[in-house]
């Protein structure tokens, strides 16, 4: 194994005509890794808060997600109950351990709640996003006990709460916020960037929703 490693590295260096110890090369790599140049960021996602919300909504709807704007997260249980009835789903919902969601008043929603990762038989789940990216209508979700990754993929209908404060213009801003939160070397196990519900065009190039993941993605953006 280690011989494969050293042989591959040696071959790369022979092809490039270097020995791996040259300081200008090392410096260039170190400076790129520490400075993390942002490259070219499209202007599409930029704007004031309200404008960004509209861009996010437009982009998410282009990719067949449903966007609902709530004044408060407290309205989420009733909104989810309403949407589940419209999908004709059994009134059961799975959540992780996120206190922002678990701490809501669910008593009037008429929903049977269950908690923790999905085992594959849940019709609906509710997660909280880390961020929303206006440029492409994309949600960023982080793995962990609060929002288990399996909830993003197994249910037929996925509800995702997104605080308006967590809307950003572009992907690069998500990385800046993650580094601030966790330091440079501590990404969660999984970061899911989700842009619309699951789909496939593998049969005759016909686009169909709900390939392996959710058939419907409802994004609940709340202002407070």
């Amino acid at each position, binding site marked *: 194994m280690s011989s494969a490693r050293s042989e591959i590295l040696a071959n790369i*260096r022979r092809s490039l005509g270097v020995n791996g110890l040259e300081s200008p090369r090392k410096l260039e790599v170190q400076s790129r890794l520490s400075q993390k140049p942002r490259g070219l960021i499209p202007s599409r996602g930029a704007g004031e808060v309200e404008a960004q919300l509209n861009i996010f909504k437009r982009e998410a709807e282009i990719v067949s997600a449903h966007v609902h704007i709530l004044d408060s997260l407290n309205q989420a249980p009733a909104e989810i109950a309403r949407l589940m009835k419209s999908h004709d789903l059994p009134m059961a919902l799975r959540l992780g351990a996120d206190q922002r969601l678990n701490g809501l008043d669910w008593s009037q929603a008429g929903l049977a709640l269950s908690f923790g990762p999905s085992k594959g038989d849940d019709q609906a789940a509710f997660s909280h996003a880390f961020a929303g990216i206006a440029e492409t209508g994309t949600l960023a979700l982080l793995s962990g006990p609060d929002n288990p990754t399996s909830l993003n993929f197994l249910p037929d209908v996925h509800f995702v709460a997104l605080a308006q404060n967590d809307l950003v213009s572009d*992907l690069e801003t998500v990385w800046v916020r993650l580094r601030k939160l966790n330091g440079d070397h501590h990404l969660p196990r999984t970061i899911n960037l989700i842009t619309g519900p699951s789909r496939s065009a593998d*049969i*005759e190039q016909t686009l169909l929703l709900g390939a392996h993941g959710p058939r419907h993605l409802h994004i609940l953006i709340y202002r407070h």
Partner: protein
Amino acid sequence: MTQHPTSTYFKDNAHRALQNPQLQKALGNSRKGFIERRAQAAARLPEFEALRDSARDIKNHVLAHLDLYLETYEQNVIASGGHVHYARTSEEASQIIIDLCKERGARSVTKGKSMVSEEINLNAALEKAGIKPIETDLGEYIIQLRKETPSHIIAPAIHLNKEQVEADFRKAHQHLSPERDLSQAPQLLQEARAILRQQFLAADVGITGANFLIAETGSSVIVTNEGNGDLTQIFPKTHIVIASIEKLVPTLEDASQLLRVLARSATGQDMSVYTTLSTGPRRSADPDGPQDYHVILLDNGRSSMLGGEFNDMLRCIRCGACMNHCPVYHAVGGHAYGWVYPGPMGSVLTPSLIGIEKSAPLPNASTFCGRCEEACPVRIPLPKLMRHWREREFERHLTPAVARSGLAFWAIFAKRPRLYRLCTSIAMRLMALAAGEKGLFTSLPFAKGWTQQRDLPAPQGRTFQEQWQKVRGNQ
């Protein structure tokens, strides 16, 4: 074992493909769609062309410092609790994966779509070792049932029609009612979804590829629309990533630049539905995710391409835009190319990976129309690289005798401009006469290969040079 190539038979393969009505019908579904969708996505983003430059520059930078980024990446995978394995060849890569599976007593593995796993012929190696591989991308699942290889790098079953898929599902899923209706694509999708759902939950090991490996964080990135690559890595105890060494990028920011050109070039989406960054195994508090995480880094000839004539090919991000825009691919489909990577990118990469002697016709399977280079998100000069292979093919006497003598004959005229002008002007006039009023040849001696498929427009009587002289004289 590396996938067995039939690229030397490209001409016969192509001939059969042109005569195959099923294939021609299926290819008809895709010819326009990909091109239009990419053009629309590019038009919606004013920065698209500049992002292509940015993507090209990032890849060039990585390739010039690949040894250092590999070392950084490896350190960060280990720091996040994962393991890195290096494989020089297909055989080594397959063996590492088999050993990992056996150590864990694995009987079935689910697989996300991975062209590198096709390159190393992983499924055959797993089956030989008594481990059942299950492809979970819908297109890959269909072709696995048919014991075929992908005919396109992002749309593996593009060569099939839904009636063929229906027949395959009826044969493979015999526990289901024979009376069920499978006449429409949504029913086929629903059936595959239900069957694969069980496999995701039952598998011991999940194997995915990687679109990018991020040196800064030690993360692997996959991009899918179905969500199968995610289900593949959430449930099994072990997640194995198989990726080739040129997939490295320095930072999260660099990966973001490349993501902006990848989906747009591939399917015309701004972003694919699921872009997933995986870093190490699940953390101690995590309720789901794999308990161990292994990355196999495959060389298989790539380190020798660095710094040489074919260095630019290593920028490829496997979007498929070159084949989507290729008139030759449109006519014959992917299988005719005879190995894992079809279309223009395959015509350059295949000779690099398996040798020009096993793939000599591929660099010739191009009209050099240049559409591949125009569409390539990382601006790989594909026609130029194919020309390099043609030169090498000629130097090594791999070019067929007829083509060699044809070239020698043409060279007599090309080196003597006056003789060339005289002969062509006589020939053009004769051909214009022979074609008569139709202006078309429907059959020609020595050119059946052309006229069987289409008519040859006849010259109008004057050569280009003669017309050019006249136009210039008028100015």
